[in-house]
C-alpha cells in the first residue's frame, strides 16, 4: 500500500470522513510544508500519549483527575451518569448543571455483546458507597438501550442511601407541537408536571 493510500484509509476511519474526503485531505496535506505535517503528526501522538480517563469519573483528562473533579465549586452531592465522555460537553454547554459526572463508557447492548461488566458500574457503586452523593441523575440516551442501562444502574444502587432520578423527555424548546411525532408527544404527556 502506498503512503497516500495508507493515510487516506486511516483518515477514512474517522467519523464524518468518507473515502473521497480522506483523499482530498491527504492531497491537501501533501501541498503543505513538511513542518506543518510534522506538527499535525506530533499533535496526534501527544493526544494519544497524554489524554486518558479521569481516575474518578472516567471523563477525558490529561491529569489524574479531570477539570470537573478538580473544581472545588462543583457540588459533589449531585452525580450525573452519562454514557460517553462526549455527553458531558453537551450538558456543560447548557450551563445549568453544577454537580459532578460519571462516565459509564457505553450502554447495555446485548446484540453488540456489551453487558454490565463492560461498563464502569463497579466504580460508580464505589463512589456512591464512599458517601457524599445524595442524588444520582441518570442521563443516558432516551433510547431503549439507554433506558435499560438506566434501569440496571437504578437496580444496582437500590439499598444505598441515594436518590436516583432520570432526566426528563419531551418536546424540544422552540418546536411546534403540530410537527412532533406521536411517541414524543406521548412521553411529554406522561411526564407532565404541575404548574
Amino acid at each position, binding site marked *: 500500500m502506498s503512503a497516500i493510500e495508507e493515510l487516506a484509509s486511516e483518515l477514512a476511519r474517522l467519523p464524518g470522513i468518507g473515502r473521497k474526503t480522506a483523499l482530498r485531505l491527504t492531497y491537501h496535506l501533501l501541498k503543505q510544508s513538511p513542518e506543518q505535517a510534522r506538527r499535525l503528526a506530533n499533535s496526534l501522538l501527544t493526544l494519544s500519549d497524554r489524554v486518558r480517563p479521569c481516575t474518578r469519573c472516567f471523563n477525558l483528562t490529561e491529569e489524574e483527575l479531570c477539570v470537573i473533579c478538580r473544581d472545588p465549586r462543583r457540588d459533589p452531592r449531585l452525580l450525573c451518569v452519562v454514557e460517553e465522555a462526549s455527553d458531558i460537553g453537551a450538558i456543560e454547554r447548557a450551563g445549568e448543571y453544577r454537580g459532578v459526572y460519571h462516565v459509564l463508557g457505553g450502554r*447495555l447492548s446485548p446484540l453488540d455483546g456489551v453487558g*454490565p461488566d463492560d461498563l464502569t458500574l463497579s466504580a460508580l457503586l464505589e463512589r456512591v458507597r464512599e458517601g457524599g452523593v445524595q442524588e444520582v441523575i441518570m442521563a443516558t440516551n432516551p433510547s431503549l438501550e439507554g433506558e435499560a442501562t438506566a434501569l440496571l444502574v437504578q*437496580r444496582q444502587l437500590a439499598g444505598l442511601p441515594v436518590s436516583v432520578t432520570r432526566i426528563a423527555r419531551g418536546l424540544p424548546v422552540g418546536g411546534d407541537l403540530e410537527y412532533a411525532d406521536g411517541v414524543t408527544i406521548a412521553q411529554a404527556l406522561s411526564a407532565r408536571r404541575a404548574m
Partner: protein
Amino acid sequence: MLLSTDALVLHSMNYLESSRILRLATREGGVRSVIAKGVRTSRKRFGNAVDLFAQGTAQLYVKPGRDLDTLSAFDVSHPRPGLALDLDRFSGASAIAELVMRCTRDASDASLFDELSQVLDDIAGAEPHDAGRVALRGAWRIVAALGVAPSLEVCSECHAPLEPDEPARFHHASGGVLCVRCARRIPGGRLLPPAARAALRAWTEGGDAPIGEPAELRAHQRLLREFLAEHLADGRPLKAFEAWEKGWSAA
C-alpha cells in the same frame, strides 16, 4: 425502486457523525440493512422514535445488487418502550432479534414478520418474573416459523413414533428427538424429560406451556442455544443469547 413496507427495527448502529445503519425486519423485503442519513440530528423524516424494536411503515430506496438500502422515511406506529422496563424483557427481545437476523435473509416472509411482531408484543407485556419463559416460547415460535422446528413426536433419524410420556434424547445435529434404538447408535445430545418435550411441542405449535423451576428455564435456554449454534454452523457466537442466559436482572 421505492419500497414502502411494514418494518421493525432489529439493530441500530451509529454511523459517522449523524447517521445510523439499521437492520430492519420488513414484511415485503425480509431482513434488510438500511442507512438512515441524518437520523441522529434531523427529526424531519424520522421523528425521534426510530429506536430498537419500534415498528412502523418504512420507505426504502432499494438498488439491486447493493447490500445497503437508503431509508427515506420511517413512520413509527408501534414503539415498544415496555421492553426497556425490565432487563429480562430487554435481553429476551434482543435474543429474538439476533435469532431473526442470523437465520433470515432478504426474502419476503409476511408470516414470519407477523410472528416476530407478536412475539415482541408478548415479551413487552410479560410479567417481569415470566419474561424469560415468554421470550423462550417466542424464540421457538420463530424457529417454527422459519421452518426448522425440531422433530419431537417421531424419531428424527428413523421416524419411529415416540410415546409422549417417555424421556427422549434430543440430538441437535439430527434435528430433534431420537428413539431408544437410534440413541444407542448416535452418541451425544441431551436427555429431554417428558414435560420439557411437551413444552417444546406446545411452543413450536403456537401454544403455551408453563415452566417450573428457574433451573428448567436455564436448561431450555441452553438447549435452544445449542440447537441454533448447530444449525447456524458459522461458528459466530450468539452474543444476545449469552446475555439472555446470564440474566442481567440478577446483576
